[in-house]
């Protein structure tokens, strides 16, 4: 039984690390500010939360688990908000998403504004 828990937490932590690396490569290699936000978002939500859930499996019924649950909750709250704030700031600073030109050369100057509120 112990080995099952260990294996599960191993898998989760490895999956989280893979997502971290993928997100890091995405932040570096993607062409545009707004597409790079996707990479950053993956790092925060999938990477960090997978690693934290793996740690939760390690510390099974402990006060540490409650603290880890709280950390996951707070990361889930703050990380998308941060990405949203960054995207809004980039939009306000003048960055526009790169849009592929449509074949007939119609007006493709600006992309959709991310938030309409």
């Amino acid at each position, binding site marked *: 039984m112990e080995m099952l828990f260990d294996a599960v937490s191993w898998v989760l932590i490895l999956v989280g690390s893979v997502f971290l690396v993928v997100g890091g490569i995405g932040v570096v290699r993607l062409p545009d500010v707004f597409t790079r936000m996707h990479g950053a978002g993956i790092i925060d939500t999938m990477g960090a939360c997978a690693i934290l859930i793996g740690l939760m499996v390690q510390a099974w019924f402990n006060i540490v688990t409650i603290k880890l649950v709280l950390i996951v909750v707070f990361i889930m709250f703050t990380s998308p908000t941060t990405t949203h704030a960054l995207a809004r700031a980039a939009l306000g600073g003048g960055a526009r998403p790169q849009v592929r030109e449509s074949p007939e050369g119609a007006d493709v100057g600006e992309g959709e504004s991310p938030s309409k*509120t």
Partner: protein
Amino acid sequence: MSLMAFMAVIGFAVARLRNLFGVVILTGIFSLTSAVLYVVLDAVDVAFTEAAVGAGIATVLMLGTLALTTSEEKTVSDNKPLLALLLVTVTGAALIYGTLDMPHYGDPTAPINNHVVPRYLADSAYEIGLPNVVTSVLASYRGYDTLGETFVIFTAAAGVLLIIGRPQRGRRRAHRDAQWDIEHGIRKNVILRVVSKLLLPMILLFALYVQWHGDFGPGGGFQAGVIFASGFILYALIFDVDLARAVVAPKVSRFFLALGVLLYGGVGVVSLLLGGNFLDYSVLAYVPTQGQHIGILLVELGVGITVAAAMITIFFTFASQER
């Protein structure tokens, strides 16, 4: 260690980068990496403080300065790079020569680990009775240093007020009519406003938790003060600065700035009046360990109040500058 190599790379990048916004963000990343390094080196209290202070407050203040001085780009006119490089290399070589005599990393028989620290570690359990040895050393065994440090924070806040403080221009009530709403975007920023309103009580609660839990785990007055101030700074960043100023009036923050230091010094004077030495907490109660607990509690509270008020004062002084 790979973390240290990472930090060296970031240091080089900061030296070479010209865009000042990038430099400031890289400094924040540098502080966070050093906080991770401190956790690896078993310094959990220090890591906590460095993450809160270095990656939080220092970055916010530097960004505020950049916004005020509006110098985004910098044209490098290095007229003396070679001389500086030569000086740096010579100094570095001298320092490395100096480290050749040092005890190796992690050596338990090094002089630093055998002078007075075994006494702290062994006697702290029955003299003070707190699990966190760092807190007991900080607040009780080395209480004078912490008193001086609280004064330093107080002086820094007072100095910032003196240098760039403006006299109050009368009460600027934030008129919340439709025009203000349109300008300040009550319809925009809905996500940020809602989430920050959800998070603010958690932040303040966490600050209080860190304050009182510093006796048993990493924490204490400094970290708690900084986290408490960051709650107010978050409110000021997302909502209007004037609104945040109305929540914490300048008089109130200045009052608390002095109150914390007064509390700390007052505990020392009270222990003088009760017959012990200055800042000797054992005389504060019948049982000496109880007296130590009370003394450390009050002293850390004083530190926390002063640090929170100082950070709030400094930030609001920066934020209410005319551009």
